[in-house]
């Protein structure tokens, strides 16, 4: 009986032949929290009475959501995480390093790994062929102590993508289109597995963008095969030895199959207040935009900043449109600086904020005013997400975001090229 990627990874890790529907105990290769879920996780860990850290070298506390701290309570939460890391010898990733999911991709996740994180976007590491999923603080507390968790092996929906993206169309448009088609609960409890010749051509950054957002369709995991792209990416991060090839079996059983013709995709936008409420950018011309935010675990990587810089070079943001840029990690910031992107973005009127989650989650660094509209490259546009229930959030690619910053209204990037 052939296996999907999820079944292959979970069979190998659990040491038994598992198939969709099985409930299993699986050892974990990496467990992490971030500063908005971590303090509760550590309190639950203490409450459990399990005074053990299964593997401190594979347990990470990321301080990335509210960095640097905008409030005394959060500063105290950060102190708690730092003192725990020092006491127990787990890894601390402090302010300035970047977003947990980006750092997990750069430095920790490998093909075939099983990863849990106290953050829903833990699915991002599926881009590297890791079965990575988000859980709450209590599950992750127990995972830190025991080094294992229970899982139901998910059914898999196969997404096959054919053809090349047209100019101005990106991985973000693909995943927004897919979520629009499936709905925000179209993959609940299931895995999405990506294949087709478009996928074999997608860069690791593009794969990370797609995997990142599968949770917006409710998915437990979003899996990419591990192939030559994965091998080159790992090598570029100094982790070439961690490469293993990983492909689903030809006779794997899928719950359903979705085929997408990438050549037919156009710049796509999620409208307020749900991610599956999609439209084409060109249909939204005339929507005035007060703020553009480029960054996050979805689209804050070097190529994302590069696309924005290419569009904004020699141009200025619209006078009524603020532009905020947050590199996803220190590495991204340094590379963007070296490539000249930061200079271009700053000259075009951007505010560069430190590597981290920034304005995405509504705590700081770009909270919207009443009635204001933001075009964001993030992954969520729920009412109140950016700190104000009276704000309106549209999700888009970095290209659409940059074009919008120039024009002051939602703009198809093909118009400004």
């Amino acid at each position, binding site marked *: 009986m052939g296996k999907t990627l999820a079944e292959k990874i979970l069979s190998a890790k*659990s040491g*038994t032949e598992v*198939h*969709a*529907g*099985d*409930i*299993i*105990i699986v050892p974990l290769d990496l467990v992490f929290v971030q500063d*908005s*879920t971590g*303090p*509760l996780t550590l309190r*639950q860990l203490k409450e*459990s*009475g*399990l005074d053990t850290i299964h593997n401190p070298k594979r347990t990470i506390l990321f301080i990335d*959501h*509210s960095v640097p701290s*905008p*409030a*005394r*309570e*959060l500063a*105290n*939460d950060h102190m*708690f995480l730092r003192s725990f890391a020092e006491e127990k010898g787990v890894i601390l990733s402090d302010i300035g390093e970047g977003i947990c999911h980006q750092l997990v991709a750069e430095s920790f996740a490998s093909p075939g790994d099983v990863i849990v994180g*106290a*953050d*829903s976007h*833990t699915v991002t590491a599926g881009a590297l062929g890791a079965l990575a999923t*988000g*859980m*709450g*603080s*209590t*599950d992750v507390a*127990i995972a830190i102590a*025991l080094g294992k968790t*229970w899982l*139901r092996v998910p059914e898999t929906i196969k997404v096959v993508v054919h053809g090349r993206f047209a100019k101005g169309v990106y991985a973000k448009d693909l995943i927004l289109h897919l979520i629009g088609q499936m709905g*925000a*609960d179209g993959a*609940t*409890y299931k895995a999405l597995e990506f294949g087709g010749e478009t996928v074999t051509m997608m860069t690791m950054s593009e794969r990370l963008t797609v995997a990142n957002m599968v949770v917006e369709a*409710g998915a*437990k995991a979003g899996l990419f095969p591990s192939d030559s792209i994965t091998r080159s990416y790992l090598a570029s991060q100094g982790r070439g030895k961690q490469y293993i090839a990983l492909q689903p079996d030809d006779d794997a059983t899928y719950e359903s199959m979705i085929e997408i013709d990438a050549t037919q995709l156009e710049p796509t936008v999620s409208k307020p207040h*749900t991610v599956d409420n999609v439209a084409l950018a060109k249909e939204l011309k005339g929507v005035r935009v007060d703020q553009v935010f480029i960054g996050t675990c979805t689209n804050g990587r070097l190529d994302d900043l590069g696309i924005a810089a290419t569009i904004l070079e020699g141009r200025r943001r619209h006078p009524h449109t603020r532009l905020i840029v947050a590199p996803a990690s220190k590495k991204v910031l340094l590379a963007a600086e070296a490539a000249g992107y930061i200079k271009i973005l700053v000259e075009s009127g951007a505010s560069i904020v430190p590597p981290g989650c920034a304005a995405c*989650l*509504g*705590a700081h660094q770009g*909270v919207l005013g009443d009635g204001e509209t933001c075009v964001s490259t993030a992954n*969520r546009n*729920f*009412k*109140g*997400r*950016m*700190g*104000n229930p009276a704000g309106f959030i549209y999700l888009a690619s970095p290209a659409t975001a940059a074009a919008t910053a120039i024009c002051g209204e939602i703009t198809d990037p093909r118009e400004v090229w």
Partner: protein
Amino acid sequence: MLRGKAFKFGDSISTDHIVPGRLLRFRSNLPELAKHAFEDVDPEFAKRVASGDFIVAGENFGLGSSREHAPLVIKMLGVSAVLAKSVARIFFRNAINIGLPVLICDTDKIDDGDKLEVNLKAGEIKNLTKKVQLSFSKMPGVMLRILDEGGLIPYIKKYKSFNVKPGANSNRR
């Protein structure tokens, strides 16, 4: 037996609606955070809800962020169970892990303010106001056992690990 009145919400209530990100600074102060539960959907909810009451929602309740603070504030306000047509994966696990029952049922048959009676063992929901009876879907055995112990922390205190036998809990289709 659980008894209380229904607080009805629609579809797609995210964990951002339950505990908004702008209140991130109260994540380590749950009593303060609880005062703001659902305030962007129903500003009076935290004041009106009484011990034993039920959250009754539509599709995909609890989608989005993994923040466990969402089911925690619901429980802290005295809510005895969440009833929904469907519920997002992480919220489902989180709620069970803290001992908050989540029951999947046809919530179209419940209106805001209806008086409900729930028998968890028998799998029955009685809408006393409308005089109709509903059933709810069975959850996986491992989750039932965690819920029976009052959540994952008491479960782990008792068993020290997961007492799931590999292959014993298959619900393959």
